């Protein structure tokens, strides 16, 4: 779900751009390191990014200037870690703005923060915590995708509430949160189920790849 072009006032566009750039720069540094070590991972990254784009172009409308769709950032985070996912999400968001008129250029920073940074970081933490605790990676990926998706929307509610703090910040936040909680939870569950189906197939057909990326739970490797 993206905040649309022109929706945020200038000062908030700048704030979110600054936050996004710091994190994305770190992600680029990480990607450079990975590519220097194993040059053949470049194509894998590109194709995974394209996959994220395709997933997120299946969109459903919701109120409040944004719309909902599976974002695929939970899966990306579990496979590549949050820093790399942030860079991929950035490219995906630019493509969405220019190819689908979905999101925008001025709100790019805010969208990167919600979809490319907070969502994947949460998903990654959840996934790592669950697998460390010895829970199977299928259950872990469900919660990672579910919470990653949900937290993306919570972040957007915060961003909108910061931009439109009326009558007070907390009242606006409650308003936005209620709307997103109602519309988002079923969609987040949907994303979770979808990710589990994908994950199962991945485990069945490409276990070596998952192992190489270090994405499997310790007891499954």
């Amino acid at each position, binding site marked *: 779900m993206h905040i*649309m*072009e*022109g*929706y945020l*006032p*200038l000062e908030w*566009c700048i704030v979110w751009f600054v936050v996004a750039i710091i994190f994305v720069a770190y992600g*680029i540094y990480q*990607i*450079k390191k990975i*590519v220097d070590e194993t040059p*053949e991972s*470049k*194509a*894998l*990254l*590109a*194709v*995974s*990014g*394209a*996959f994220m*784009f*395709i997933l997120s172009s299946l969109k459903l*409308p919701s*109120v*409040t*200037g*944004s*719309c909902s769709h599976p974002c695929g950032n939970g899966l990306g985070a579990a496979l590549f870690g949050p820093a790399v996912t942030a*860079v*991929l999400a950035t*490219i*995906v968001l*630019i*493509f969405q*703005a*220019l*190819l*689908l*008129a979905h999101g*925008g*250029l*001025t709100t790019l920073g805010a969208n990167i923060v919600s979809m490319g940074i907070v969502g994947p970081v949460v998903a990654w933490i959840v996934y790592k915590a669950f697998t460390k605790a010895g829970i199977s990676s299928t259950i872990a990926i469900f919660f990672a995708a579910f919470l990653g998706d949900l937290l993306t929307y919570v972040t957007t509610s915060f961003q909108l509430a910061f931009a*439109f703090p*009326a*009558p007070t910040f907390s009242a*606006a936040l409650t*308003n936005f949160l209620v709307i997103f909680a109602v519309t988002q939870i079923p969609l987040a569950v*949907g994303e979770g*189920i*979808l990710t*589990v*189906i*994908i994950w*199962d*197939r*991945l485990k069945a*057909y*490409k276990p070596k790849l998952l192992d190489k990326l270090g994405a499997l739970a310790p007891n499954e490797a």
Partner: protein
Amino acid sequence: MKFDMDYIAHHNELTETNPYFKLFLTIFLLILTLALDNLYFDIFIFVVMSIVILAVAKINFRSYLKFLSIPMAFVVITCLFLIFFFGNGEVIYETGIFGIVVTTDSLHYGVYTFFRVVGCLPLLGFLALTTPIAKILHCLATLKVPRIVIEIALLMYNSIFIFLNEIDTMQKAQETRLGYHSYWNSFKSLGALASTIFLRSLDKSETLQHSLDSRGYTGELPIYEPQKRE
């Protein structure tokens, strides 16, 4: 499919115009529109950019309307929402339902946000509808955006279109077998579709890497820039 915008970007009167000029003009005007936050200026930009898109770039009216319609529908809903549920200050209008009122503040928010979006959308449209992605990426590359990002973006752009064809074929195959007949069925079909695409994409990425390597790929795709036809 739904990527008409990409087709339009390659086939209009402004495709060959200097992409740096288009990129900087768009960014400059976007910032200006946001900074001024002036209702008249928003409308002025909307009119001017619409004329540029329709008359100068000669993009047909229906495509442009289609580009505007979805975001516009959202922005109308959102701004109504802002007007009715936000803000304090003087009450201007009472709906009489659940004490929902329109106040000076909320009206101000709603109206300004609406016109800001109205002003910004055609600007995004100007860039998106007249400039092919590859050209924008090429611009960014010369503007010191890290090369690895541009490379990944270019490879991504190419694979997106390969996937779209495959998805189209698979979805038709699933539909003819009643794959989207019920709610649970469509979940299973969508999951199967997505995972198959992912597995195929992994194979594709391997093939892509091999073909790049065998042609001496060192991290740069040399691009031939044709001379402008006068």
